[in-house]
């Protein structure tokens, strides 16, 4: 059983006040425990937690490059196997590193079946470099490289379905979770690190700076994402839906209107057509996973 009192992520890190990923880091380590080796990608979490010589990590931690955490983890796992050591090997990487530049390494690591857990903290854009669009950016979100403008409603592509992609690689356990439900993160991480083979966890970690809301509202936004069907908490065991969080669904605009990155859908005029399209995405999520009570 995970020891929830363990604090393996020190204060003094330089995350924004109200940072979703910072909270996720604490919770992940509660789920994984002291015998954990963390492989980080370049990104917000790596930068705010390890400016030499200050490190917030109290477990062994390594950062190599932006895109290769899964490959580095593969090597660590092989080394531990050879040495007969049993530490959990986990990657903690942002959505940019995971959905985009890291796809090569993740696909290879999952195809080879290494006993690792890959955890993506999903704040839905390249936040560390100043809020640029990633493959995880939701439809119509305004980012600096997919800005809303005279001829644009923001990001024009839907969010890549990475959990299903990795389930298709044969991952024995894939789960999505959110900082809205901290104990759920701890439980899912614990299950993943104790499941043999390559497991994937995607954590919804709202970013107040990037999405445009007050840092005190981080959890509330995370809850709204789930309540409106824009994020689904589910578990896949060997590719089949194992558990889904059921919700009493609210209209998507309850979520969208709280964030500056969707403000262009409401001001100067309300864009019904686009809001309807986003509602359709939420409806499709609800149907696919059977979330509605």
């Amino acid at each position, binding site marked *: 059983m995970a020891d929830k009192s363990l*604090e393996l992520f020190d204060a*003094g890190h330089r995350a924004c*006040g109200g*940072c979703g990923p*910072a909270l996720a880091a604490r919770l992940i380590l509660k789920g994984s425990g002291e015998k954990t080796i963390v492989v980080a990608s370049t990104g917000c979490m790596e930068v705010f937690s390890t400016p030499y010589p*200050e490190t917030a990590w109290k477990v062994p931690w390594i950062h190599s490059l932006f895109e290769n955490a899964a490959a580095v983890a593969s090597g660590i796992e092989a080394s531990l196997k050879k040495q007969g050591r049993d530490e959990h090997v986990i990657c903690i990487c942002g959505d940019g590193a995971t959905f985009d530049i890291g796809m090569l390494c993740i696909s290879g690591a999952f195809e080879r079946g290494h006993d690792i857990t890959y955890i993506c903290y999903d704040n839905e854009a390249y936040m560390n470099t100043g809020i640029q669009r990633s493959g995880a950016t939701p439809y119509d979100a305004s980012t600096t490289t997919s800005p809303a403008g005279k001829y644009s409603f923001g990001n024009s592509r839907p969010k890549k379905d990475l959990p299903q992609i990795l389930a298709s690689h044969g991952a024995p356990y894939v789960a999505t979770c959110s900082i809205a439900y901290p104990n759920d993160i701890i439980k899912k991480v614990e299950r993943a690190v104790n499941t043999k083979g390559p497991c994937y966890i995607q954590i919804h970690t709202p970013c107040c700076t990037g999405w445009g809301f007050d840092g005190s509202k981080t959890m509330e936004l995370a809850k709204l994402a789930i309540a409106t069907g824009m994020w689904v908490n589910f578990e896949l065991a060997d590719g089949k839906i194992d558990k889904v969080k059921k919700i009493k669904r609210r209209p998507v605009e309850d979520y969208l209107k709280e964030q500056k990155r969707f403000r262009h859908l409401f001001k100067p005029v309300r864009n019904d057509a686009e809001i309807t399209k986003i509602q359709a995405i939420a409806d499709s999520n609800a149907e696919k996973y059977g979330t509605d009570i």
Partner: protein
Amino acid sequence: MSLNIGCAARPGRSQDNKTGSWRVFKPEFHYDLCTNCGTCQLLCPEGCIHKIDDNYIPDYSFCKGCGMCAEQCPAEAIVMIQEEK
């Protein structure tokens, strides 16, 4: 001070950085209303709320005043007040 080879470090040094200086608003804890649910401690992104004896006490040298604890406290026992500098 000598450099640690390969840009490496042992744990503990982040605590040199007292992020409490970032604060504009400060959480004020009202223990008469607190139900000891532990939500504030669980969700603090700094991990700087500690249970001491029976109370949840924030470490103000690190608290950034983000307000998440106040926003989520089910007993509404935490209030954000503007800090006097």
